[in-house]
């Protein structure tokens, strides 16, 4: 074998992304844009919840959506067909989005919509409870959606995403009668991971519980824009 020199590196691997995410967050704060990262397992109801949420916010705020998907664009079409600006990002097989991909996507959203200013930009992250949680996207707020059919034990099994999410949306409560999902247990699980996060039991489909979520979100947007 050839002789070689050793170069010490000693560098934490996601350090650059963390710094980059903080930079993006500061830029967005200066521009008074609230950037929300929505995470969940596949099919938990991200698109349905986001669509209902942008409809509710649109009377007060200019809202745009970023759709991250490994390969398809059905979710982006859903948002566009409802009349809201949206861009599709393909992660090319990657299971998550990082700060730099966020920045580029936001830039592209401005370009394609020729909009001057967005108050709120919502990211639908890749459907997965593990990887997206590991990468800071530069979001002002992280949100996780857990749906009733997935079971009440998810906060125990996927600690990180529940640790970093300020809001936990328990979706598909209209399906509670047919599942053995325990609301008390899920609250306990969430509390173990994060002492201050807010839990919103909702049905994004029929609108139950959504008003409390909109109100919370609007308070957050206002606080972000004011300071």
């Amino acid at each position: 074998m050839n002789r070689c020199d050793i170069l010490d590196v000693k560098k934490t691997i996601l350090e650059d992304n963390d710094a980059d995410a903080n930079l993006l967050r500061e830029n967005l704060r200066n521009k008074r844009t609230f950037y929300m990262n929505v995470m969940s397992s596949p099919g938990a109801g991200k698109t349905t919840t986001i669509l209902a949420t942008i409809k509710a916010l649109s009377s007060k705020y200019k809202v745009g959506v970023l759709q991250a998907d490994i390969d398809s664009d059905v979710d982006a079409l859903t948002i566009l067909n409802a009349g809201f600006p949206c861009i599709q990002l393909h992660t090319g097989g990657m299971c998550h989005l990082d700060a730099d991909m966020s920045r580029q996507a936001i830039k592209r959203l401005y370009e394609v919509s020729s909009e001057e200013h967005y108050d709120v930009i919502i990211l639908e992250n890749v459907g997965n409870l593990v990887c997206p949680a590991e990468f800071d996207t530069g979001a002002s707020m992280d949100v996780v959606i857990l749906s009733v059919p997935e079971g009440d034990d998810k906060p125990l099994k996927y600690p990180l995403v529940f640790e970093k999410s300020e809001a936990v949306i328990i979706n598909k409560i209209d399906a509670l009668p047919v599942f053995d999902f325990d609301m008390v247990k899920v609250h306990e699980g969430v509390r173990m991971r994060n002492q201050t996060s807010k839990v919103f039991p909702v049905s994004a489909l029929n609108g139950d519980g959504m008003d409390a979520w909109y109100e919370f979100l609007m308070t957050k947007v206002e606080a972000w824009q004011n300071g």
Partner: protein
Amino acid sequence: MHELGVVFYVIKDVANVAVENKVSTVNSVTLEIGEVSGIVHDYLIDCWNWARKKEPCVENAELKIETIDAVTFCENCEKNYPTVAYGKICPHCGSDKTYLVTGNEFMIKEIAVPED
């Protein structure tokens, strides 16, 4: 399952170090990975072997992984214990007031480059 994403970060960092040190090729890259960092070593190496072909300076570089043992500290009895065997509950006193001391690391330790 975010091994592929992570591999791209490693390659970017290594490419930067190579440029800073004015070397054009890297023989090997050594990572230090905590036992409970959630990274699957074999899968990481598969991702590496696929991704390195896209970056000339690491094209022929071998990925080496050193594992850092996971150790948890108990605030109640002030003792350490191995995390993987006992989890969150202290085997000495049964307390759950414990926290991870090591085992979460995910670092590039060093890279080997041809001697000049």
